[in-house]
């Protein structure tokens, strides 16, 4: 009996020390500064994970400020912020959709700041009060499996045709901010948007899950066409060699800037502002473009995807959209049951 307990304790202490060592390695390399910055900045970032890691590493190299990241879905980030209200931790929060940014703004508590590169920022990528900083953007598109449909350029309403019966899927708008904003823009921006949405449901539209899960259904050939697929996921899969193709339907789509915000409770305010400035730097914007996202400034262009001026858009009235976004998302899930 004694022997066993000793064994157990031994194994336990080995684990503890191993993990302890692993944890300490990262926490020692701060000190060097540029412009008097030091310490750390805590950033809550949604996907894409590769981009988040690269941005963090580049910022640390440039300023010496350690970046602590929490990566999660927008939902997880929002839940975390709410739970931490009594003891705020985040310095910069990045969200995956503009409407989530507007929701946070409506709750109050965002710091107003004018980034140094403000003149270069795309129109509509920063709000009037300078609290939402759209450092990148995505658009939703139609992504289709070329082993099932070799060529496709149908407009939104044509996807309800009998040819595509039971072949269409859409990301869950209650899980994907991009899909939610698209539906809101679609319903408010197009005259017959809501009717088209209903006709998709009648044509056998399914909701396989969040962005990636929905794309998965099309990649594996379960469904042929993904409506409102996030474009950067599509581009990166195509570059890997998956049999997919992507296009923006002629009547337009919704461009969705991905905002960074600074809570006014940020414990490291100076570092937070420096991080936002860094997001609009040429170096960071190149990384954004490499991740197949639309850059947030007008002097960096992406060469691996359609640029802003090549995408047909539905004029987005965000105020109107905000009013009906959640309702529309719930409605879509309801009619696709």
């Amino acid at each position: 009996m004694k022997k066993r307990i000793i064994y157990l304790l031994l194994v336990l202490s080995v684990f503890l020390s191993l993990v302890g060592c692993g944890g300490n390695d990262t926490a020692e390399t701060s000190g060097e500064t540029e412009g008097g910055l030091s310490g750390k900045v805590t950033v809550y970032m949604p996907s894409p994970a590769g981009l988040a890691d690269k941005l963090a590493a580049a910022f640390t190299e440039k300023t010496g400020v350690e970046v602590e990241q929490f990566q999660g879905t927008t939902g997880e980030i929002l839940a975390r912020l709410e739970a931490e209200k009594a003891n705020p931790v985040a310095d910069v929060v990045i969200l995956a959709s503009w409407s989530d940014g507007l929701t946070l703004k409506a709750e109050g508590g965002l710091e107003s700041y004018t980034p140094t590169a403000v003149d270069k920022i795309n129109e509509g990528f920063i709000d009037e009060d300078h609290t939402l900083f759209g450092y990148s953007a995505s658009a939703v598109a139609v992504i289709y499996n070329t082993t099932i449909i070799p060529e496709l350029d149908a407009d939104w309403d044509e996807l309800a045709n009998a040819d595509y019966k039971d072949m269409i899927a859409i990301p869950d708008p209650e899980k994907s901010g991009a899909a939610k904003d698209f539906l809101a823009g679609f319903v408010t921006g197009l005259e017959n948007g809501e009717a088209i949405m209903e006709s998709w449901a009648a044509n056998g539209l399914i909701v396989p899950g969040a962005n990636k899960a929905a794309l998965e259904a099309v990649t594996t050939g379960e469904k042929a066409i993904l409506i409102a697929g996030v474009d950067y996921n599509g581009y990166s899969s195509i570059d890997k060699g998956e049999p997919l193709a992507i296009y923006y339907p002629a009547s337009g789509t919704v461009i969705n800037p991905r905002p960074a915000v600074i809570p006014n409770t940020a414990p490291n305010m100076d570092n937070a502002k420096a991080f936002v400035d860094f997001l609009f730097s040429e170096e960071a914007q190149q990384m954004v473009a490499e991740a197949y996202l639309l850059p947030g400034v007008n002097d960096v262009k992406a060469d691996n995807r359609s640029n802003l001026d090549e995408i047909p858009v539905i004029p987005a009235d965000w105020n109107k959209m905000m009013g009906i976004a959640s309702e529309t998302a719930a409605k879509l899930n309801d009619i696709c049951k």
Partner: protein
Amino acid sequence: MKQIDFKKNLPFILLLILLGFLILCPLISIFAKAVIIDGRLDFYQAWQIITNSENLQTIYNSLLLGVSVVLCSTVIAVPTAFLLARTQLAKYSFLDIVFMVPFMTPPYIASMGWILFMQKNGLFQQLFPSTGALSENFFQFGGLVLVMSLHVFPFLMTMLKNAILNIPASLEESAAVFGAGKTKRLTKIFAPLLTGNYAIGALLVFVKTLSEYGTPYTLGRRIGFYVFTTDIHRYSTTAPVDFGSSASLSSILIFICMGMWMVQNYITNRTSYRLVSGKGTRPVQTELSKLGQFGAWLWIGIVVLIAIGIPYFAIISTSLIKLRGFGLAAGNFTFGHYKELLTTPKAISSIWNSLFLAVSSATICSILGTIVVLAVRKAKGFFKKALEAVSLLPEMLPSIVLVLGIMLFWNSIYKIIPLYNTIGIMVLAYVILYIPYTVSYVTSAFTQINESLLEAGRTFGATPFYVFRRITLPMISRGIFAGWMMIFIIAFRELVTASLIAPPNTLVISTYINREFEQGSVSLGMGMAVICVIITIIALLIFRKIVEPKEV
């Protein structure tokens, strides 16, 4: 005249305060969000959410699912437990580990595996093109019940198997001497002796099904079957975040589970038999004939094929496929994903983090949980019920609600105890979430111990500690170890807790997999799932070597 003897009850009071601090404070923190609106106590809004008619359907769905899963996992677990405990198959102890594999598999991974296997143009249709759309029939309520049962049946099986092992041969033999036939022995002796343990196991399965999120989200929503937990998650993680509503909804779940727990308690108390007594016992061996053995292996084979074969075929093949769009085709396979995983520092550190969390939380739970059970047995009246109820509470609500409560509570006392945002808060959260497992397993072990053994120890002048160390502990050790293993397995792959409460820059296996699913490569995620299960198996083998050197 009732009087609470303060001195006598002091240990219980202290334990209750500790549990209250760990479990009740977080719960109060989140339920306060439901009933305190604009600084005033207001039950109206919470009441409205609870009585919303749409919820009736999801409550009905949840209950239907819970009952169906209990029935289905009983069908799988009972024969398997019998075969593994009573027949020649008992000597193949590797089967114990094999039957843990479905439980080691993260539920969302297993259901993804099933979806990939059964869906249109899925693996089944690629293997057997001539069957047409046959496999798509899987996508209905029955499929969901099957997948969930396959995940939880090991719970019930382990509990029943341990209980069967404790039934001494003498009871059945004496029945045989008095002329009872096989069926009669089974229905009059064997079955009644197990009812208490079965009730505990069934409750665990039921509660686990009700609070499960992964499978209902991946598979349930695809077939349009909505349950309670998906709604609760929606309230807590879609903007605008509303913790109050998710807490209100959870209260229904707690209510249902508490009710089930009372029923289980009633059954277990009525059917506890003091089986483990001073006399040396010999477990029964039923010698199966050649045909019987064939049948037994056939049954084991079928269960293994369905519970492990199918999902793992999908998981492993996905982890080896180069391009998902081309499916199972020659030249489309690669080991590259595994190579990438084993050379990425983030992947490696996530494995270490998960191991650390699993070992530490399982160990702490085993110690604390055993103390709680001992106290529950010693205590009387109020303390007995209160201790047990509080310690089982974490099991009765979806983990997201408790985790959010923990986050709210520990942030509010951050100035006093700065534990939040360290790995310590993760250990703490895991301990809180998993303590019911130890409590259930040890309680199940206790239902069979004969009080006379302890009395004998005391009669011979042993100190209470000596009695505990030499009599109680060895007899409940099987329960403690089974609980440790279960907690290790669950903690190793826990997703919901980790995805919310993990401090910055800390990844664990499940969040790593999830990140790959969401943004990276599904194949990489599946590869990590395979590695996760392999590590779990190795860890369990080591653990068994350490704690059961004589029995293995």
